[in-house]
């Protein structure tokens, strides 16, 4: 390879390559004192039809409703009834109880994999409560709160996690990659951010058909680096698609901190600015802020005022998944040092401040939900757990590759059934 010309020597310091590095590693004492948390009342709520360039500061600020004393304040307060607030609390508590139980099931060897959303429950639960049940959600892998909020049967979730006889996905998908069209929940992909342009396409279709339904879509701050994210924002702004983009900035993508997605330079909500899309950066641990921002964006989308990007500023309290060990790359107490608290504790405090909740009811509800999850788990485990027997007829492996099975798959299926008989005998049945 011929050499390209070099610049003559000068007295400039040599160029240096910046490799982002999180501020705290295991053994360090985390201090998030420099995270700016503006006063609740400081953030104005523009009209839903506001031009994106007239509300840019909201991409760099932090929309909040609940202060740290449990009071709901400011222009963004959605003024929900105590009944709605209690439903929200229950959905978040159920999500956490479900997570704890399923995490433990994986540790007990009952399934291969699980992902908790601890500390991020508000982002999916409150957001789902602020849209219509007929709106279509394109989730990432950490939005189990959406299914729980839409009353998807817990046993179906567990059956999928166990890949057992009751799993309507026939054991084909990694645990937590649910699919629930009748609950407006798109099939979860294992590839990151691919759902972003798909949600835009769904929203474009809805608009072109004169429908009134909108789409919402989810990814993490880490996967906002994927090309699909930027493709989606481009298409959404070009066609003014009725879609809500949610970026859950939980600070960590497995072991990579948000700096590896560009978080050292600007906010993730600010991605919207360059695309001419409305951007809201919100306190993702404040369920009322999540609700209010989503409601704003949904109203905007439904009135042909276009897409919104919402950055949920939050913290991933647990590992990325059961396959992760966060103590290897970050301080163990980062979650407790996080300045925005825990969403369940904050909503509980708010309800108690209103006189609509108390410790006794909270403990009773926690126990009720724990029992519900345990009972459901027992029912699900009767239908089998992963790795203890094979629960699906072997030929299901070949079905649904195409609507009709072509000859080459039929041949391969016959081969596999012969292998099955050679190994298990002619009378084998799914267990």
């Amino acid at each position, binding site marked *: 390879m011929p050499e390209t010309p070099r610049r003559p020597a000068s007295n400039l310091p040599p160029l240096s390559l910046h490799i982002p590095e999180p501020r705290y590693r295991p053994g360090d004492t985390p201090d998030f004192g420099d995270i700016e948390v503006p006063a609740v009342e400081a953030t104005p709520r523009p009209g839903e039809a506001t031009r994106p360039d007239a509300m840019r500061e909201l991409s760099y600020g932090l929309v909040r409703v609940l202060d740290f004393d449990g009071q709901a304040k400011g222009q963004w307060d959605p003024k929900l009834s105590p009944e709605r607030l209690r439903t929200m609390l229950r959905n978040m508590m159920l999500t956490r109880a479900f997570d704890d139980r399923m995490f433990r099931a994986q540790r007990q060897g009952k399934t291969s994999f699980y992902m908790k959303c601890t500390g991020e429950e508000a982002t999916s639960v409150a957001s789902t409560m602020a849209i219509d049940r007929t709106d*279509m959600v*394109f989730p990432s892998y950490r939005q189990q709160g959406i299914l729980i909020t839409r009353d998807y049967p817990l046993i179906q979730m567990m059956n999928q996690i166990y890949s057992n006889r009751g799993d*309507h*996905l*026939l054991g*084909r*998908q990694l645990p937590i*990659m649910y*699919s*629930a*069209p009748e609950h407006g929940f*798109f*099939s979860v*992909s*294992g*590839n990151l951010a*691919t759902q*972003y*342009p*798909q*949600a*835009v*396409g*769904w*929203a*474009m*279709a*809805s608009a*072109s*058909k004169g429908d009134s339904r909108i*789409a919402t879509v989810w990814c993490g701050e880490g996967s906002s680096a994927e*090309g*699909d994210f930027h*493709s*989606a924002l*481009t*298409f959404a702004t*070009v066609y003014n698609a009725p879609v809500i983009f949610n970026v859950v900035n939980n600070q960590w993508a497995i072991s990579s901190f948000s700096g590896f997605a560009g978080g050292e330079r600007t906010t993730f909500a600010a991605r919207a600015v360059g695309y001419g899309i409305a951007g809201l950066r919100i306190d993702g641990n404040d369920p009322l802020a999540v609700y209010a921002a989503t409601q704003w964006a949904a109203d905007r989308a439904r009135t042909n005022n276009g897409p919104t990007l919402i950055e949920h500023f939050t913290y991933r309290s647990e590992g990325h998944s059961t396959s992760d060990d966060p103590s290897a790359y970050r301080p163990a107490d980062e979650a407790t040092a996080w300045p925005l608290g825990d969403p369940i504790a904050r909503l509980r405090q708010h309800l108690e401040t209103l006189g609509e909740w108390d410790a006794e009811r909270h403990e009773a509800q926690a126990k009720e939900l724990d029992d519900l999850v345990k009972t459901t788990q027992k029912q699900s485990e009767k239908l089998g757990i992963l790795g203890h027997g094979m629960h699906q007829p072997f030929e299901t492996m070949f079905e*649904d*590759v*195409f*609507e009709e099975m*072509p*000859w*080459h798959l039929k041949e391969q299926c016959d081969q596999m059934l012969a292998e099955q008989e050679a190994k298990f005998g002619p009378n084998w049945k799914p267990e």
Partner: protein
Amino acid sequence: MMSADTKTMNMIEAINSAMDVMLERDPNTVVMGEDVGFFGGVFRATAGLQKKHGKTRVFDTPINECGIIGVAVGMGAYGLRPVPEIQFADYIYPGLDQLVSEAARLRYRSANDFICPMTVRTPFGGGIFGGQTHSQSPESIMTHICGVKTVIPSNPYDAKGLLIAAIEDNDPVVFLEPKRIYNGPFSGYYDRPVEPWSKHDASAVPEGYYRIDLGKAATVRAGEALTILAYGTMVHVTRTIVEEMGIDAEIIDLRTLLPLDIDAIETSVKKTGRCLIIHEATRTSGFGAELAALVQERCFYHLEAPVERVTGFDTPYPHSLEWAYFPGPVRIATALTKILKD
């Protein structure tokens, strides 16, 4: 043989007519892609369709193939039947993840909760001085994906019938259009005048709806001396050489690479005892390798000579040396002589 509702069409017109018919018949069909709207496509395949069917049915897209295919997946999930165009097959790679991991897998991973009835149309192949980024033949990348059908027409009549069947199919189809023969069948002799489609029987195309089922090959020429498996542009090149050499070859135009018409291949090779496979794509791991494997698995005891392949070389498609790269008359004649020797 021209009936009242039959018109002489070249391949572009036939493809245009297929989309026109489907836009008319099915309100869920949408056509999208770079430059396909007002302008009507860089090869004119969508000319007039936006004006006739409206901007929300036929529209331009950003230059973003990941977005085009990804958005089409979402539209399919809504209930539309999208027909995205990728301007050149060489540009499909930025959208490949959406095709491989999403479109192709959606029905399977969701156990029929969601499907992807999408047809990706894209011009492929060389012979128009397109250089290495406007000449590639990526069909074997497509056939290697489980969950995608791959279709390649070789004439106007087939192009329309196959495209209608592809659009109506409830699974994703990659519809590869051999751009060298858009305007006329190609003899393989780049230095001879181009023959227009109007001189070819297959340019008589019904104006209305008809379909050619996917997965069915066509026998272009019946013969006894050997079987030649080809598709797209190479069907015509092959036919020219065979006729010049006076060889009684059976030429099978595969039309659909996946699902493949294995019965047609097996029957013919068992009859002739010899098999030559011809494609323009690079040789190593090309679709010819799959065909050769299938033929030896099924017809080994009928073979009188080794299965031969005539292909493009394993180099990028060169610009100025395009015709040295192309599997033209000399390469095909050499292979024919060799396979018929004993």
